[in-house]
C-alpha cells in the first residue's frame, strides 16, 4: 500500500488516497518447466520428498474412495488434484505449531503424523479416529469456517504465552463467504496475530462455482480489508505454497502479523463420494484442469533434473500401496467401539444423574440381543 505524499484534489473533491497491490507466487508451470531459479529450500531431497508425499496422498485417497464404494467406509471427501496444497502445508508445519484443518486435508494430516487407519476410522464413523495426533492440533472441522475463528483464538493464545509458533488453518473457497472467516481475519489484523490462513480455492463449493461465490477478482484481497498480508499462489505448485508458508512464518516471527494465502487449484473429484459433479459442471472443464494437476508437473521437473525415473516410480507406488493396504487391514480389523462409549468424554467428571441413562441403554441393548 502506497500513499502519495502530495495528493492532488479533483473538481469533485477527490484525491488519491492509496493503492493496493497483490502478488502471486509460482515456480513451475503446468508442464514442470522452471519459471525462475530454484528457491533455496528446494534441494534435491526436498523436491523428491515432496513428490513422494503427493503420490502417497493420492494412493491413500484412491483407496479411501474404493472403500466407500464397497460400503466399508462412509462418505469421504477426496483430495484428488489438491495434493500440493496439503503436502506443502504438512512439510512446513513445525512441531509446536497449531494446525486447524477443515475436512479435505488428508495430505497435511498424513505428514502431521496421523495414521492412515485413523483417518479411515474417522470417515468410517468412529470417534476414535479424531482422538490422535499432536495434542494442540484441532480435529477435522465440518461446520464451515468455524476453524478460522478457532485458529485466531489459538494464535492469540500463542501470542499471550509468548510462543514463537504459528496457528495454521485451512479453508475452501466456499468457506471464505462465511462470517467466521471475516471476523477471524479482522481480529487477526486488529491484534497482529501469528496466524496463517490457507484457502484451497479449488473453484467449487459443492455445486457453486467460484464466480458466484464472491464478486471480488481474487479471494486473497480479502486480506486487504482485514489489514493483513494477502498473497495468491499457484496451488498446484508445491514449491509456491511452501514459499508462501515460509514468508508467512517470517512475517509472524517479525511481529508483522497474519497472512492469507489463496492457493489456486481445481477440484478434480466430486465434492464427496455421494456427490456427482457431472450434474453441474462440464467434462471439458475437468479435462482442461487435469493439464494443471500438481503431481504430473513435479514429476516432469524431477525427471528433467534426473532425480526420478520409472523404476523409482514403480517402487514408490508399490511401497505406498503396501502401506495403504496394511492400513486398510488394520482399519477393517478394528472392532467398533462399545455402545457405552457414546457416554464417554461428555464432561471431565461423570454427572451422577446420567447413570439413569446408562440403565436405559442397558435395557435397549438387552432388547436388541433378543432380536
Amino acid at each position, binding site marked *: 500500500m502506497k500513499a502519495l505524499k502530495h495528493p492532488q484534489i479533483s473538481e469533485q473533491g477527490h484525491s488519491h488516497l492509496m493503492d493496493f497491490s497483490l502478488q502471486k507466487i509460482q515456480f513451475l508451470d503446468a508442464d514442470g518447466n522452471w519459471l525462475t531459479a530454484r528457491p533455496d529450500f528446494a534441494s534435491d531431497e526436498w523436491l523428491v520428498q515432496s513428490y513422494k508425499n503427493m503420490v502417497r496422498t493420492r494412493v491413500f485417497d484412491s483407496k479411501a474412495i474404493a472403500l466407500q464404494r464397497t460400503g466399508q467406509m462412509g462418505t469421504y471427501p477426496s483430495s484428488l488434484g489438491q495434493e500440493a496444497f496439503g503436502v506443502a502445508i504438512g512439510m512446513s508445519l513445525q512441531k509446536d505449531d497449531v494446525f486447524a484443518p477443515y475436512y479435505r486435508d488428508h495430505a497435511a494430516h498424513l505428514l502431521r503424523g496421523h495414521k492412515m487407519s485413523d483417518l479411515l476410522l474417522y470417515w468410517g*464413523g468412529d470417534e476414535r479416529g479424531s482422538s490422535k495426533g499432536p495434542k494442540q492440533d484441532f480435529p477435522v472441522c465440518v461446520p464451515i469456517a468455524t476453524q478460522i475463528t478457532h485458529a485466531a483464538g489459538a494464535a492469540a493464545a500463542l501470542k499471550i504465552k509468548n510462543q514463537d509458533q504459528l496457528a495454521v488453518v485451512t479453508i475452501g473457497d*466456499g468457506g471464505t*463467504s*462465511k*462470517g467466521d472467516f471475516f471476523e477471524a481475519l479482522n481480529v487477526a489484523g486488529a491484534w497482529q496475530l501469528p496466524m496463517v490462513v490457507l484457502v484451497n480455492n479449488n473453484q467449487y463449493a459443492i455445486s457453486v462455482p467460484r464466480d458466484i461465490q464472491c464478486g471480488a477478482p481474487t479471494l486473497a484481497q480479502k486480506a486487504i480489508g482485514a489489514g493483513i498480508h494477502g498473497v495468491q499462489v499457484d496451488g498446484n505448485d508445491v514449491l509456491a505454497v511452501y514459499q508462501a508458508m515460509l514468508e508467512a512464518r517470517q512475517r509472524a516471527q517479525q511481529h508483522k502479523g497474519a497472512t492469507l494465502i489463496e492457493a489456486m487449484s481445481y477440484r478434480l473429484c466430486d465434492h464427496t463420494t455421494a456427490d456427482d459433479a457431472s*450434474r453441474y459442471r462440464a467434462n471439458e472443464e475437468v479435462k482442461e484442469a487435469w493439464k494443471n494437476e500438481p503431481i504430473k508437473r513435479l514429476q516432469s521437473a524431477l525427471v528433467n533434473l534426473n532425480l526420478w525415473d520409472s523404476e523409482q516410480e514403480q517402487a514408490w507406488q508399490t511401497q505406498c500401496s503396501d502401506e495403504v493396504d496394511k492400513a486398510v487391514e488394520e482399519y477393517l480389523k478394528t472392532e467398533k*467401539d462399545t455402545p457405552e*462409549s457414546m457416554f464417554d468424554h461428555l464432561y471431565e467428571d461423570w454427572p451422577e444423574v446420567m447413570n439413569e*441413562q446408562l440403565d436405559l441403554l442397558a435395557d435397549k441393548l438387552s432388547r436388541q440381543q433378543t432380536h
Partner: protein
Amino acid sequence: MSAVNDMNQAQAVESVLLEAVNLALHYEMEHDESVVLLGEDVGTNGGVFRATSGLKEKFGFKRVMDTPLAEALISGMAVGMATQGLKPIAEIQFMGFIFPAFEHLFCHAARMRNRTRGRMSCPMVLRAPYGGGIHAPEHHSESTEALIAHTPGIRVVIPSSPARAYGLLLAAIRDPDPVVFLEPKRIYRGSKQTINNNGQALPLDTCFTLRQGTDVTLISWGACIADTLEAADKLAEKGVSAEVIDVATIKPLDMRTMLTSVVNTGRCVIVHEAARSFGVGAEIAAQISEKCFLNLLAPVQRVTGFDTHMPYFKNEHYYLPNSEDIVAAVDKCFREA
C-alpha cells in the same frame, strides 16, 4: 429432469417425502410470484437432496438463488426479503449448520411483528433436513427442534409422510409468520404415497391421528412415526390397542388433541429422536401431567435419544429409538397401572 416436469403437470403423483416437498415448492412458486428460494446448491444442483430440483430451470435465477456459503447470510437475507413483500423459502443444507442462522431467527424473524406492533411481519420459511439414520458424517444428523421451539414467535413444523409434507409445506409458505420446516432425512425416500397435486394445504397448529386406539396414546413426529406405527402393530398382536398421534406442528402444540386422547386411554408414551432432557417430549409430558393427572393410569413415558451427542454413524443405531424400545415403554405403562 423431464420426468420431474412431467410429474409436476400431473394431478395425482406417486411421491416419496422428498418429491412431495419438491411438488409443493413447484406448485406454490407457480401460483404465487412473491415466493422465492435461496440457499446453498439449491439452484443448478437442485439441492443436495434434490428438494429444489427443476425450480431454477422453471423460474430462473432471480427466484431461485444459489447463495454464497453463509447460513447467517441466508437467514438474515430471508428476514430482509420477507419484510419487503417477498415470501422467501430459505434452505439450510443440514440442521447441523443452522446455528449461525439462529441469530436472525430468534432476534429478528421471531420478533419482527411483535416489536413493530404489527407494522412489519416476517412470512418466511426456513427449511432444513434434520435427524439421523443415513450414516452421515458428524454434524449431519442433528435433531435440535427443541431449541427453536423454545422461542416465542416462531412455528416449528415437522412432516412425517409425503402427503403431510406436501400439505404442511404449502401451509407453512402461506403462513404470515416465520416457520421452520424440518424434513426428516431418514424418511426422505421411504415409501411412496399418492399426492393430489391440487395445492390443498393441511392445517398448521394441529396434530393428526394416524391410528385410533383405546389402551395407550403414542405421541411422536418426523421419522420416529415409522417406528411408532411399527410398535403399534406389534402391540396390536399382543392385544393392546394403541392410538398414534403425529404432532406435526411442534410449536405451537395442539395439546387439545393429545389431551383428549390421553383422557380416553389413560396411558401415554412420547417418542422422539432428539436428546431426552429439555426435549419437546418434556413439554408435552408436563402438560399431560398437569391437565390429565386425574385420568392417568400410569406415568407418562418418554422414549428418546440419550443426553449424548449423536454418535458417529458406526454407533448411530444405539442412539436412535426403535419400535422395540417403544413397546417396552408401553409395557411399563401396564405394569405400573
